[in-house]
């Protein structure tokens, strides 16, 4: 659909909504959890016997407009008792609800679609999965460390990089194509200990929402997905301590009311102590991590609320006397919720985030610091115009500072000269509007449009190349080489080197076939302006983000999806089937033999290509009863093609399509939990994935006395299939109800049958025998764990 047509449709929808609004009143309010005062995101609020309803937003706010009448207002949220209230709607009114965990339905709800119960099949939002932190906590994990990222990998369409990278891939997208937000702040590296754990402390997190497609217009900047992680606000009713003691790390959090009950706070920390064991055992090498989450909020009055949240995390590695390394994220966000009226909700955020790493090469006598920092202002408004129409609009401006590398000698005698790689700057701005319009009782449409505008700012010099070609094909040697530098152009700080503007339409519709069945379809275009370049086998924390500019174009992703959704057997079971097709233009890839480390002119090592991915996803869930769980299956394909283009030559892999590193043909996850009695809970996962595409040698020869491997086409072979079984058991000892101290033991076994899943297979010459060997690296074999969690 062309943009003008889309705009016409949006205007038409708004217009028809406006003329039909008459004799209506609005009910609005906030839904909170009765036990701790946390706002509830995604609860359904509706008028009984009608199709009029709403879903609470991230701040627990809802607004419903209906014609004057008497109604029963019902609030429902999976895992919570349904609350209702009779109302006479003859004036605008504010009704706040507190909902409690249901006693009959106390069983953990493993996974809930964003909109619970009867509304969920109606809203056009598709391709979204939400996990409550209670769910995540029940999933067996390695070393007993609750892990958000490993949990979302159990969903259809989501695969893991490998056990050493800790990232995740969504619908054939690369890891840098995921926008990861912690309380709206961009998190650039989601792993601790190089991926063994994630940076999200489950004690500080309320919920996690993953948009695999149909990305709402308020998000932008990444080509594949949005992972929206929200921190808890803190218990506003009682002071509460939570903690856990595990084998390699412990955590403690405190939360409670502050500001004379006008607000609450949360402080949560985690630290590992494996380095202590390592040192005690005489090991020269050690690794550890810690992180801290903070949040507080203050109710100025019923229409204004302030939130302040922050995160700080760090990893540190020590390798004898030779090498130290550290990396970490830091972020902060100050938010102001303002309710203009019972139909207009707004939020203003000031956000900061930063990621840096430091490498200290003692044996080479220098250190290396790299950093990415951004400042972000965001303003979002929701206008609940009528029960048929909701409008969202807002804007967002991000300023980035990139420091790809600052190299300094660390001793007087060092032979290293100081070197500061080009410092890069950029602005990324977005402006969006989106309308959700209920065309009829059966059909709902969401149409949105985002305009993004990116400016690569000056303050640096760029190399000029002969014929404007930073990379050229050497037809004699048949390899890509750096272009001929013919000079440099300096750009002043207030100059814009290059700017890009993109219109990003988003469209989604839901058609309800009957009470339990619906069909949804969506299209979304997203632009990605910053890129993570890596030519290593695994994504490492040392990879460098690069902004678009004179040589690198923004990635443009188009995704089409259609799905079938069905609840059956009185909503005990649900089935979701989705299929998608995604293309990404301007996906860069590195040429064979590229050198990306300390590379000031990355443009000389890359070619511009494209990516395509398609797949079919099934999700079958059981969400009620003592036995709950889900089965997820995805069949998919993800490929890249990188022709030579202006550089000439055939391109990467002779210009043919090749498997993207994240391609997995089959991906199956089964997650189950069983509640035996009040004391014992059991959980299990089964995971099966097709092996990762890799490049294997197809020959060898002798050179300089060494056996040198020659390699086949890029990603033409595959690692062996990945599979494992994990189990866990939770034991809650007898406890007296009057006691405030509540404890539980969690026992787990990761990889029960000790499968040696290859994280990589590498080929080399045995230095003792001189024979060639294939060496498998498998990170986690069978890992038993025990941890003790408490609440006070």
């Amino acid at each position, binding site marked *: 659909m062309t943009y003008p047509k889309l705009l016409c449709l949006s205007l038409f929808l708004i217009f028809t909504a406006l003329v039909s609004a008459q004799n209506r009143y609005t009910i609005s309010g906030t839904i909170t959890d009765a036990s701790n005062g946390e706002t509830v995101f995604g609860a359904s609020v509706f008028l009984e016997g009608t199709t009029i309803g709403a879903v609470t937003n991230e701040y627990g706010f809802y607004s419903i407009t209906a014609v004057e009448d008497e109604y029963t207002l019902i609030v429902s949220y999976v895992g919570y008792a349904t609350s209702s209230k009779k109302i006479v709607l003859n004036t605008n009114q504010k009704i706040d609800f507190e909902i409690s965990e249901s006693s009959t339905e106390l069983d953990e709800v493993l996974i809930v679609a964003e909109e619970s119960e009867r509304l969920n099949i109606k809203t056009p939002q598709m391709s979204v999965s939400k996990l409550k932190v209670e769910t995540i906590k029940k999933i067996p994990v390695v070393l007993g460390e609750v892990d958000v990222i490993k949990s979302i990998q159990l969903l259809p369409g989501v695969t893991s990089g*490998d056990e050493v990278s800790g990232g995740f891939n969504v619908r054939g997208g690369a890891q840098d194509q995921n926008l990861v937000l912690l309380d709206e702040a961009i998190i650039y590296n989601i792993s601790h200990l*190089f991926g063994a754990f994630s940076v999200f402390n489950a004690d500080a997190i309320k919920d996690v929402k993953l948009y695999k497609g149909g990305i709402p217009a308020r998000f932008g900047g990444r080509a594949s997905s949005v992972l929206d992680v929200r921190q808890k606000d803190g218990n506003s009713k009682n002071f509460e301590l939570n903690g856990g003691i595990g084998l390699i790390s412990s955590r403690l959090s405190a939360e409670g009311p502050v500001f004379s009950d006008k607000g609450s706070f949360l402080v949560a920390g985690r630290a590992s102590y494996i380095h202590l064991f390592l040192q005690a055992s005489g090991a020269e*090498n050690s*690794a550890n991590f810690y992180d801290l989450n903070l949040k507080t909020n203050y109710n100025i009055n019923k229409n204004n609320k302030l939130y302040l949240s922050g995160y700080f995390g760090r990893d540190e*590695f020590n*390798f*004898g006397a*030779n*090498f130290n*390394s550290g990396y970490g994220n830091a972020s902060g966000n100050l938010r102001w919720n303002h309710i203009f009226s019972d139909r207009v909700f707004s939020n203003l955020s000031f956000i900061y985030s930063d990621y840096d790493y430091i490498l200290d090469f003692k*044996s*080479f006598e*220098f250190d290396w610091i790299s950093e990415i920092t951004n400042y972000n202002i965001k303003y979002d408004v929701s206008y609940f115009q009528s029960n048929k129409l909701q409008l969202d609009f807002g804007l967002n401006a991000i300023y980035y500072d990139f420091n790809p590398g600052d*190299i300094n000698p660390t001793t007087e005698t060092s032979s*290293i*000269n100081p070197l500061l790689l080009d410092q890069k700057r950029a602005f990324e701005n977005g402006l969006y509007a989106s309308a959700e319009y209920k065309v009829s009782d059966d059909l709902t449409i969401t149409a949105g449009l985002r305009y993004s505008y990116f400016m690569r700012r000056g303050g640096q010099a760029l190399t000029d190349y002969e014929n404007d070609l930073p990379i050229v094909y050497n037809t004699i040697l*048949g390899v890509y*080489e750096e272009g001929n530098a013919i000079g440099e152009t300096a750009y002043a700080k207030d100059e814009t080197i290059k700017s890009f503007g993109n219109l990003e339409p988003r469209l989604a519709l839901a058609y309800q076939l009957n009470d339990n069945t619906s069909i949804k379809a969506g299209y979304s275009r997203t632009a990605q302006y910053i890129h993570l370049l890596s030519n*290593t*086998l*695994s994504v490492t924390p*040392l990879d460098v983000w690069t902004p678009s500019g004179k040589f690198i174009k923004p990635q443009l992703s188009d995704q089409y999806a259609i799905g079938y959704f069905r609840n059956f057997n009185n909503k005990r079971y649900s089935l979701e089937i989705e299929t998608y097709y995604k293309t990404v233009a301007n996906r860069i890839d590195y040429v*064979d*033999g*590229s*050198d990306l*480390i*300390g590379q000031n002119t990355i443009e000389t090592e890359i070619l511009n290509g494209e990516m395509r991915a398609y797949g079919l996803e099934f999700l079958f869930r059981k969400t009620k009863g003592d036995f709950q769980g889900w089965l997820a299956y995805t069949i998919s394909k993800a490929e890249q093609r990188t022709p030579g283009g202006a550089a000439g030559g055939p391109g990467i892999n002779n210009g043919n399509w090749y498997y993207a590193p994240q391609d997995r043909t089959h991906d199956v996850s089964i997650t189950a939990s069983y509640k035996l009695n009040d004391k014992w809970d059991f959980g299990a996962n089964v995971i099966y994935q097709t092996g990762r595409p890799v*490049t294997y*040698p*197809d*020959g*060898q*020869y*002798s*050179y*300089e*006395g*060494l*056996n*040198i*491997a*020659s*390699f086949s086409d*890029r990603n033409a*072979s595959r690692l062996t299939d990945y599979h494992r079984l994990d189990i866990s058991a939770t034991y809650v000892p007898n406890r007296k109800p009057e006691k405030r101290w509540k404890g539980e033991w969690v026992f787990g076994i990761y990889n029960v049958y000790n499968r040696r899943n*290859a994280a990589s*297979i*590498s*080929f080399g*010459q045995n*230095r*003792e025998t*001189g024979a*060639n060997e294939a*060496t*498998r*690296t*498998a*990170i986690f074999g069978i890992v038993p764990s025990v941890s003790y969690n408490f609440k006070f």
Partner: protein
Amino acid sequence: MKYSIFKILSIVLICASCTDVVDVDVPEAPPRLVVEASIDWEKNTLGNQQSILLSTSTPYFDNLSNNSVTDASVKITNNTSNEEFEFTHQGNGIYGTSSFVPVLNQSYTLEINYQGETYIAEETMTPVVDIDEISQAREGGFDDEALEVDIYFNDPGNEENFYLFRFEEEGDLLPELLAIPDEFTDGNRMKVFFEKEEDEDIGQEEFEPGDIAFIEFYGISKQYFNYIDLLIEQYENAENPFGTVPATLKGNCVNPSNPENYAFGYFRLNEVNRVTYVFQ
């Protein structure tokens, strides 16, 4: 240096028990000509004795023997004087001459005719500075207690230079190679060390007094640096999950009439310092 960075990372992360040797089916490409044409001119010699090694590639897990190329014709031409040097087969794929005339900064062309195909390569004889000092130490290196030999030299300022070191201890099965640019050290006195760490897995021991190390120090062209640096990186990083994704290495031996049928290996010409160091 970059492979050291990743190597260190991998050692930090990957415990020895995480790895094992496995059987893997790998693809098999048809054999290709392999050219090891290393015209090394040792300082203070005439440099007229030179040899070139020709072989073919094999499937990855095959034994590398009986793959010598014995029926090729090989010659090198001085691109300025057009003087030609014929290399004749002397057995086992070795082609030699005793009349080569090396000239610093002179470009040469190698031509090989093999099975009706002609392979051509062009390179320039690259000089190298003298070794300034060679000494041993325990302090420094990867391990402050292990013995190492330190080689010092003065990098010429304001020009791009590239170096190759080849280290071997007497009795070693395989050499160690190190290629370095002066990118970060232009114009400085540079130090390179050769140290061995104890590793029971590969039967490697630290240096002790009386041990003999053979050190070769080459000046190399930028093009050869790009080639050998990648070759070393792929070789050394073979067991490293953070290593760069491997790719087929193309050297400078091209086949103009059938470009797909290029040869592996490289035609290089360089000046070299050769030193034998006995640990005290």
